[in-house]
């Protein structure tokens, strides 16, 4: 649910990073925060437990540049991945324009990935969205680990609708910006489409 301000000539969009606990959502935002120049980013806010697990959300506002004289601003959020924080996840999805799913490639986390993806579909539905239609990008994270599952297997299980997908190592920044660009693009294209139809 974007916000277009014709007076200040700004477009605001909300992107949510979703996925199982410890998958690397917060790490994605931290890397983006570290690499963006100060004039394009705001503060990174992390509401986390003492052990650095996301408790409510992380939030990072970015200014990406102009389109047709409008400043485009993206607000990145992560959800808490741990299963019992479901009420918070549902709240954070409100008003979302695009979703990045950060999957944990470790073979023993495959069930957690599947469960989290199902949970995303349900929570989108409860917020009035359709998973089939929302801009969506998949990131297979932690590709550096020896116990990573076969890529093809992950694709088949987690990305049957073949959304744009990337093999990432968030701690090293691999595919972090590719993922962000891909979702930002999808969101803008969807905004264009939805205004054209009306």
């Amino acid at each position, binding site marked *: 649910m974007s916000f277009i301000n014709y007076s200040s000539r700004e477009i605001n969009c*909300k992107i949510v990073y979703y996925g199982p606990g410890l998958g690397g959502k917060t790490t994605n935002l931290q890397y983006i925060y570290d690499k963006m120049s100060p004039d394009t980013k*705001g503060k990174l806010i992390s509401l986390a437990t003492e052990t650095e697990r996301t408790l*409510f959300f992380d939030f990072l*506002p970015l200014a990406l*540049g102009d389109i047709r004289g409008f400043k485009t601003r993206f607000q990145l959020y992560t959800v808490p991945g741990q299963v019992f924080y479901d009420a918070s996840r549902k709240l*954070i999805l*409100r*008003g979302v324009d695009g979703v990045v799913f950060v999957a944990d490639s470790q073979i023993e986390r495959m069930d957690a990935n599947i469960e989290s993806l199902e949970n995303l579909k349900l929570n989108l539905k409860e917020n009035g*969205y359709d998973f089939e239609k929302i801009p969506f990008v998949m990131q297979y994270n932690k590709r550096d680990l020896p116990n990573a599952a076969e890529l093809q297997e992950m694709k088949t299980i987690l990305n049957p609708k073949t959304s744009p997908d990337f093999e990432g190592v968030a701690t090293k920044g691999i595919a972090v910006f590719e993922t962000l660009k891909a979702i930002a693009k999808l969101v803008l294209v969807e905004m264009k489409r939805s205004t054209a139809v*009306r």
Partner: protein
Amino acid sequence: MAGPSLIMYEEEFNQINKVLEKLTKEANAKIVFLVDKNGQLISAYGETKNIDTTSLASLTAGNIAATGGLAKLIGEKEFSILFHEGEKDNIHISIIGQRVILVVIFDHRSSLGLVRLRVKKTGDELNAIFSKLIKKVEKEPQAASPFSEITDEDIENLFKD
């Protein structure tokens, strides 16, 4: 998928800013700001220079969302007013017309009673503006949207480093 749900035009934006300015003065507040329920800052007025209004907006919306969740759990619709008292500064948060969140930050130069009183009046004024805005958005042809003419190239250009 739902299209852009919040659209702001110059006319209403100016009206909103005037209302916020008035509230800041009449309530002796330090800062007044307006946020949509998803955490987007709509406008801010007052001593905003040394304060991160974007973060404030996002956390306010998170706060309202969380207390809204609590309300539901105990069978309430929502808590329409929140008040946080600090040593020097206090925050008064209220939901206006179930749409937007009005935040007033004030110190000893004002009082909770005064802020409450002024916020109530401001709420009615803001409600009137937003109702008008919504009608206008429904009527206005989308031709004015910056997106109707956007090209793939425009989008591509955003990401050139």
